[in-house]
Structure formats: C-alpha cells, structure tokens
C-alpha cells in the first residue's frame, strides 16, 4: 500500500495544506520547460564577451578641444547553474588642451599628445536563488591624480508570478585625490549609496521600473586645478528614476521612455528625459534613434565670472561651468546587426550640445555653448 505520512495527506487533498498553484512552481523547476527569459532571477546560461571602442571629442567656440580614445572589454560567464561572474575593463586616453575630467591640467604632457588617462575595472559575482539574486561587486578607477574604490551589494527579489522585482542595493566608495599641482595632497572622499527599486511587468508588452537612490558623501569635493574653488565637504544626492518600455507589435518596435529627477545638496537639481525607438529591420539589422534632454539648476555657490566683488573668503565658491545652470540635448542613433553564431555588431553616433539658454527661464549668462560627439563601435559574441 502506498501509504504516506505527508502533511498534504494528513489534512486531505483539498484541505489547507499545499499552497495554491503549488504544482506550477514545482513544474517550473524542470529544466527547459519555459524560456529562461520568462523567469526573473535566473542565472544567464550563456557567456558573453563584448568589445567596444569609443572615439569622443568635445569643443567650445574658439575654445579647447578634447579627444578621448576609449577601448573597453566586458565579459560575463556563468560559473554554475546558479552563479555568474561578470567584469569589465576600460582605458581612456585623453588628449587636448584640457583633459576631460579636470578643467585645467598642470604637468608635462605625455607621449603622442596624450595628456591624461584613466583605467577602470570592475568585477561582480551574482548568486541566483529561486526568485531572488544576490550580487557582490567591486570596482576600481585610477587616474594620475585620482583613485576610486567601490564595493557594492545588491539583492533582487521577485514576486511569485515573477512579474514584479524589488531591488535593494548598498554601495560604498573611497576616493583618494592627489592633484599633480600639489594643491590637494592626500585628500579623501567617502560615499555611501543606497538604492531601492521596483520593476513591474504591466502587460506582455510593457514594463516599468522606478528606482530611488540616495548618495551621501563627505570629504574633498573642490577642484584643485582652479584658482579659487571651494566646495562644501559633504554632498547628499537623491535621484528618482522611472523607466518605461513599451513594445508595439504593429511596428515590431520598442519605445523606451525615462525620466529622472535629481535633488542635490549643492543646489544643482536636475531633470533628465530620454526617449528611444528601437526598430528591427530585415536580415538582423536594427536601428535605434534616441533623444535626451537634460537641464540643471546652478549650484548655490556657483558664480559666473568675473569673481564677485565683496565675496567673503571661506564661503563655498565655484566657477566650474559643470555646476552652472544650463540645458543640454543629445541626439543619437545606434545601428546593430545580429550575425550567425551569437555574434553582434553595433555602431552608435551621438551629438551632445549644452547651452545656458536651453534651460527654461535661462541659465548662467557667462556660459559658452559646449558641444561633444562620440562614435562607439562594438562587437560581441555569446558562448
């Protein structure tokens, strides 16, 4: 006799024991019965290697030109059914009268007109559980005068129907600043980041994500290469990002929209709106035009040149245009081609323009328009 002493038996088949839809959950544990993509928090079953190369240039009327060459490598590899590793490396070589990351540069220029560089890398391990995933990451970024180290932990938990995912994240960064002009030596900055996010599949054709991040840092924030640049020794940033993707079966296209609001204790609050249209074409080709509009308020301690009369020293002060009030528009297009055996190639061209009068109500009067363009080529392969 097949007598059993299971809890379901004890209370009867139709009793309270055994949760509703229990057999579906058990069936989903069978391998290959559902496309992996339908299940949130499943370990990738394929590795991916991707190479990208960015050629970046920016300019101002009669002003400086910066040119950045930036190759990068990304690798993702499943280590087991429930563990995946990913990592990336990027190297920026910067040439031009003024380096990208500082508003002035002191020191002998290096070989071939290269004036600065940056090397950055990160690794992340993600462990997948039934309906949840935990990731641990580390990142490092090194410049001649700047070293940043970051550790992070993120947890994602899915609802039973896998249509909603909650994300929690915490990250800590420790940065060291040693300016080449000796103004800032042995300076530090520590930052803690928190994230809470929700992703919800609204329908078979629509998905929305809303993230809140908090960042709190203290330490050295000033720009040592500016004659006078004094910033507060702490900075708090709250960002609210909402992204929405809608598939349009009529066109076989996908519309992506996003909005981000950033509140910054420096006073440079900002709004970002993005829209992109992904259109698959014949033979594995696709095209994605994209638009982005950004506008920020000037920092409380930003002053347009000339240096204000009667300024009391000791108060925060900056003339860094990155903290002024302006609007900016990016137009871009990405073309991609899927090739056999997991290969993919893509090309992206983007044009960025920043103007003070593109801020509603007008921005800083002393700001020269700034333009940038970048061309990004990539190739990737799944394995």
């Amino acid at each position, binding site marked *: 006799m097949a007598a059993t002493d299971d809890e379901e038996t004890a209370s009867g088949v139709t009793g309270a024991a055994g949760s509703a839809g229990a057999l579906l959950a058990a069936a*989903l544990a069978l391998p290959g019965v559902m496309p992996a*993509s*339908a299940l949130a928090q499943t370990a990738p079953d394929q590795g991916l290697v*991707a190479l*990208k190369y*960015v050629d970046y240039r920016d300019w101002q009327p009669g002003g400086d030109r910066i040119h950045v060459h*930036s190759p*990068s490598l990304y690798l993702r590899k499943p280590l087991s059914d429930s563990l995946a590793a*990913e990592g990336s490396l*990027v190297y920026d070589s910067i040439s031009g009268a003024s380096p990208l*990351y500082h508003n002035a540069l002191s020191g002998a220029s290096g070989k071939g007109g290269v004036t600065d560089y*940056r090397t950055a*890398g*990160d690794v992340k391990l993600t462990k997948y559980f039934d309906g949840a995933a935990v990731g641990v990451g580390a*990142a490092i*970024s090194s*410049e001649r005068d*700047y070293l*940043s180290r*970051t550790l*992070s932990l*993120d947890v994602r938990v899915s609802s039973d*129907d896998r249509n909603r995912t909650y994300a929690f*994240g915490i990250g800590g960064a420790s940065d060291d600043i040693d300016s080449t002009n000796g103004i800032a030596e042995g300076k530090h900055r520590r*930052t*803690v*980041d928190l994230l809470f996010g929700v992703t919800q*599949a*609204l*329908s*078979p*054709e*629509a*998905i*929305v*994500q809303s993230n809140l991040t908090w960042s*709190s840092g203290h330490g050295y924030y000033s*720009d040592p290469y500016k004659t006078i640049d004094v910033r507060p020794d702490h900075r*708090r*940033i*709250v*960002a609210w990002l909402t992204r929405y*993707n809608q598939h349009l079966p009529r066109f076989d296209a*996908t519309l992506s*929209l996003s*909005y981000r*609001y*950033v*509140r910054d*204790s*420096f006073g*440079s*609050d*900002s709004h970002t709106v993005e829209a992109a249209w992904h259109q698959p074409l014949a033979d594995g080709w696709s095209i*994605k035009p994209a638009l982005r509009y*950004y506008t*920020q308020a000037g920092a*409380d301690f930003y002053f347009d040149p000339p240096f204000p009369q009667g300024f009391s020293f000791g108060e925060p002060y900056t003339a860094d245009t990155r*903290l002024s009030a302006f609007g900016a528009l990016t137009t871009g297009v990405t073309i991609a081609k899927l090739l056999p055996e997991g290969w993919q190639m893509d090309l992206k061209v983007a044009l960025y323009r920043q103007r003070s009068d593109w801020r509603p109500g007008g921005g800083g009067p002393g700001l020269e328009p700034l333009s940038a363009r970048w061309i990004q080529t*990539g190739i990737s392969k799944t394995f």
Partner: protein
Amino acid sequence: MRSLDLSAHPAPLPRHWVCIAMVVLLSGCATLQPPKPWEKGRLAKQEMQFGADPIDVRLADHIYTSKEAGSGGYGVGGGGCGCN
C-alpha cells in the same frame, strides 16, 4: 548614515514634469494585465530590458557625469572617477 539635508533646497518639482511622469505611469496602469509565464517572450527581448548593454550604459553615464552635475538613479557601486 546622517540624515539627508535637503531642506535648504525647497524647489518643488515643476508641474509639467510631474504631469509627464504621471502620464507615463497611468498609461501603463490603464492596460495593466500582468503577463502569464508564457506571455513573456516580448519582455525577454533585449530591447525590452533595462540596461541590457552594460558597457553602453556605463560609457554614457561616464560621459554625462563629466559634463553635468546630476547623477544617480541607475544603481550602486559603479566605478567612480575624478569628475567631481
């Protein structure tokens, strides 16, 4: 962690931004039919996922943080850089 000192910046969200955000959210709610497990083929497409191309996201983020003050919202623990 210290409490967030944002009281010094009382500027409210401009009304038109709030409207845009709400329209986006409501248009989703109006058609709220969470997919069944077998209806997720479209959501699984690369273009329907957020941040499907990690390098692209990171490079764009890096370029923007070198030009703009605003940052955050996308995640935690990205590599920092000297662009204050």
